[in-house]
């Protein structure tokens, strides 16, 4: 991480700063060098290369920032567009002045350099140079004449006397050096008045050519550090083939020497500058261009920095705004500065805190509301009464499970619909929806009405009550299924009747029977045959009717059995087999069984369950009657309903089927379609089913006949029972 941070710092900060510094130093050094104060000749190309590299580096740094800005723009980073706008504005503000200054500087440079080369100055320098040349030429002519004079004196001199003459003449004519060269170019004699010029310069090709052309040579030559007048004249000789040469070096006077050097230097410098004019302009233009690029790139880099610095808090504010919008309040905010932006950050932070508090309160309130709603829903779901809620326009908004169960429809399907729409789809509920709609339209604050409604589960008696909710929030309708209540009341009444019958009627029956039998034994032998027969028939009738009354009382006793059932795990199939085996050998009955796989266990009172099964078979046999041979099918199956496993014990017959209008009342005592019987069989079965947490239902079979189905809750799933179940015998 540290290496990465260092690399990032180097690439983004240090390198551009170094590039700026290098470019600045290179520009200064190049300018100094171009002005003549350089001394960077050996490193010139390196300096130039460094400047170019620095420019490239700055350009790369800007390109990298531009690329990053582009990426930020593409991904919609907070503040990217504002940063771009700010960058463009800053660059547009800063670069044009720099370019204008650059243009003016170029123009000024051009004019300034051109102004250096004043025509009059050049002319004056040329004139001065020409004057210098004239003076030198005059001196040359004097020196030439002196040399010719000496040469004339030397023409007859033998070689061994030449040196003496030269020594004499050198001071005479004011020469610095005199030398005589022979044919072969060798120095024959030489004299010098200045120890710096002991060796005479040898005649070169130019001199020899001039000698051949003009017969003599005279020129000012820079010899050593001084400008000297060099004169060469031939020495006449009588000796054929002898071509000796006298060469003299004459100094210019010291004052003249200084003046001519000054003139030459001035002219020299002017000419050199004149020649360098174009190059100077080019070099200074290059340096100015470097300065321009440096300024422009630096401005752009600075603009990036300024834009980033200005936009960063705004960007973070935008990010924070987005986060707050998304419900996150912990996004860090930029450090508030002491300006308007700081005020904005502070205000935003305060606003965020308030929103957070408000949101927390709202959330808590929503949770509380949701809890209340869940509680209300749970409450509604557990109400035995049906509850329907309607809005002001009469559309169904809520219905509990009890309402669905009582009405036999799915409330979810009708949510948002009006009562008229419900009635169109469920016309059999018209007895319910019409009065309800009428009350809703009537606008009464509270009302109640008892309704008889035909539902899919049969006819039900409902007590419907309605209330208008406060603040015109709608209506709520509550209805109780009085069918069950009525039945329970009837069951209780029948139970009471049965108990009283069992208790009040059974007690006198035995004395009546005993008294009748005593009468019969005492008087049957003493009376006449006719009277005896009367007594016999009467007592027989009494005894048989008492037996019948006993049977009926016992049946009522069974129905009103006060003691609770002794529930234990019972293997149902084993119990069925035990009971059915009793009917198996009866040739009058066609009995078949179709039992489910496994051995379902039920928690039951074996005696009561056995009685229920006997009652169902007996009910089937009585229903079939003598018209046909009874065919009874006993079957079981496992069903799953309401997260509970059930076993359904069905007894089907081939009788005439259920009578018209068969309903819940047929499971009440003394309700029967048969001529004989107490009408308590099915009531007892229903009572036993309810004692075991089950139910009984009856329906017609498709192939004819009826089927009574006893549903009991399974205690342990079939096939997984490990404990041996009780099989009663």
């Amino acid at each position, binding site marked *: 991480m540290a290496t990465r941070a260092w690399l990032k710092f180097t690439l983004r900060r240090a390198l551009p700063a170094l590039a700026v510094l290098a470019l600045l130093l290179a520009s200064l050094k*190049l300018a*100094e*060098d*171009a*002005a*003549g104060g*350089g001394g*960077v*000749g*050996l490193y*010139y*190309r390196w300096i*130039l290369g460094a400047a170019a590299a620095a420019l490239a580096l700055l350009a790369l740094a800007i390109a990298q920032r531009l690329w990053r800005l582009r990426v930020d723009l593409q991904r919609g980073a907070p503040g990217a567009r504002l940063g771009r706008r700010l960058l463009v504005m800053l660059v547009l503000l800063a670069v044009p002045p720099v370019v204008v200054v650059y243009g003016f500087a170029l123009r000024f440079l051009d004019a300034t350099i051109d102004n250096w080369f004043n025509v009059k100055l050049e002319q004056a320098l040329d004139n001065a*140079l020409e004057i*210098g*040349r004239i003076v*030198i030429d005059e001196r040359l002519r004097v020196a030439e004449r002196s040399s010719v004079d000496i040469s004339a004196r030397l023409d007859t001199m033998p070689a061994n006397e030449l040196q003496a003459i030269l020594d004499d003449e050198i001071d005479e004519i004011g020469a610095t050096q005199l030398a005589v060269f022979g044919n072969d170019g060798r120095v024959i004699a030489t004299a010098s008045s200045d120890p710096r010029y002991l060796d005479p310069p040898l005649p*070169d*090709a*130019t001199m020899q050519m*001039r000698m051949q052309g003009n017969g003599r040579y005279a*020129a*000012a*030559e*820079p*010899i*050593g550090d001084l*400008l000297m007048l060099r004169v060469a004249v031939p020495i006449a000789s009588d000796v054929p083939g002898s071509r000796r040469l006298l060469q003299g070096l004459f100094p210019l006077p010291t004052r003249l020497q200084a003046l*001519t050097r000054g*003139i*030459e230097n001035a*002219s*020299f*410098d002017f*000419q*050199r500058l*004149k*020649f*360098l004019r174009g*190059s*100077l302009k*080019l*070099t200074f233009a*290059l340096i100015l261009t470097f300065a321009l690029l440096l300024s422009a790139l630096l401005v752009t880099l600075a603009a990036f920095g300024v834009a980033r610095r200005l936009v960063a808090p705004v960007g973070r504010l935008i990010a924070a705004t987005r986060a707050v919008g998304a419900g996150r309040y912990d996004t860090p905010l930029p450090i508030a500065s002491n300006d308007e932006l700081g005020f904005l950050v502070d205000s935003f932070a305060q606003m965020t805190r308030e929103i957070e508090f408000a949101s927390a309160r709202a959330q808590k309130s929503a949770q509380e509301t949701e809890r209340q709603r869940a509680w209300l829903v749970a409450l509604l779901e557990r109400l035995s009464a049906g509850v329907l809620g309607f809005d002001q326009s009469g559309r169904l908004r809520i219905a509990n499970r009890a309402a669905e169960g009582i009405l036999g429809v799915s409330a979810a399907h009708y949510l948002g619909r009006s009562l008229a729409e419900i009635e169109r789809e469920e016309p059999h509920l018209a007895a319910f929806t019409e009065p309800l709609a009428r009350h809703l339209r009537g606008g009464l604050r509270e009302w109640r009405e008892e309704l008889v409604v035909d539902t899919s589960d049969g006819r039900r008696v409902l007590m419907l009550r309605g209330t208008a909710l406060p603040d015109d929030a709608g209506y709520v309708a509550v209805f109780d299924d009085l069918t069950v209540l009525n039945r329970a009341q009837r069951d209780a009444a029948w139970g009471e009747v049965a108990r009283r019958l069992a208790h009040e009627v059974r007690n006198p029956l035995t004395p009546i029977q005993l008294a009748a039998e005593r009468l019969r034994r005492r008087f049957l032998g003493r009376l006449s045959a006719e009277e005896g027969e009367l007594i016999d028939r009467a007592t027989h009738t009494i005894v048989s009717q008492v037996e019948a009354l006993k049977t009926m009382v016992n049946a009522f006793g069974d129905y009103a059995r006060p003691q609770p059932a002794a529930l234990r795990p019972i293997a149902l199939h084993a119990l069925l087999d035990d009971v059915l085996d009793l009917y198996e050998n009866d040739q009058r009955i066609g009995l078949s069984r179709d039992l489910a796989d496994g051995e379902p266990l039920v928690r039951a009172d074996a005696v009561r369950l056995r009685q229920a099964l006997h009652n169902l078979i007996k009910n089937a046999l009585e229903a079939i009657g003598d018209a046909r041979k009874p065919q009874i099918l006993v079957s079981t199956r496992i069903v799953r309903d309401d997260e509970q496993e059930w076993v359904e014990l069905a007894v089907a017959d081939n009788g005439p089927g259920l009578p018209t209008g068969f309903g819940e009342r047929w499971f009440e005592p003394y309700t029967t379609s048969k001529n004989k019987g107490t009408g308590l069989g099915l009531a007892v079965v229903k009572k036993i089913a309810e004692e075991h947490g089950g139910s009984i239902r009856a329906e017609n079979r498709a192939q004819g006949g009826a089927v009574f189905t006893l549903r009991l809750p399974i205690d342990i799933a079939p096939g997984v029972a490990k404990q041996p179940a009780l099989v009663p015998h």
Partner: protein
Amino acid sequence: MRSSKSLVSAACVAAGLLLLGGCGALAEQHPGKLTIRVARVTGTPDAPMLELGLDCRLSGPMQDALDHGIPLTLQIHIEAGRWRLLPADARSDQRIELRYFPLSRRYQLRDLDAAADVRSFATPGYLLAGLNSLRLPLPATFANLQRGTPVHVDAGLETAALPGALRLPALFEPAWQLSAVEYTWQPAPG
């Protein structure tokens, strides 16, 4: 947006044309020519000398600069050794200055490393002809070279000695390129 793009495109095209034009103009400049005609080490074992014959032709700008008083310096590098990548057995750098004096209208050829060796010429032709016969002093190590040791000489214009304003053209303009192909020989034994 479209107009700014067009402007940028036009600027790019103009810059390209200018660059091509500049390259073309540079290519049209005739460079000078410098050839090492002959080179040999002579002299005594104590004072070996390099006898160098240079054929030199200055380009127009160079001649112009010379006539305007700008000295031109030729750098002559001599090195003896069998392997170029290893340190040389002997090496020396000599600098020859060509200069014009307007008052006397004389061209001067000066060995900058031996101040006394100055020759002046009336014309640039003679000046350049003077380069045909240069005698430059060498370090004594050149007198003791092993037999068969090759000696390499190269020569060229020393741009670092030019005035600062001329360094930029000297870097890029062909007219300011002046260098000789390296001359190599093996000194004769004895």
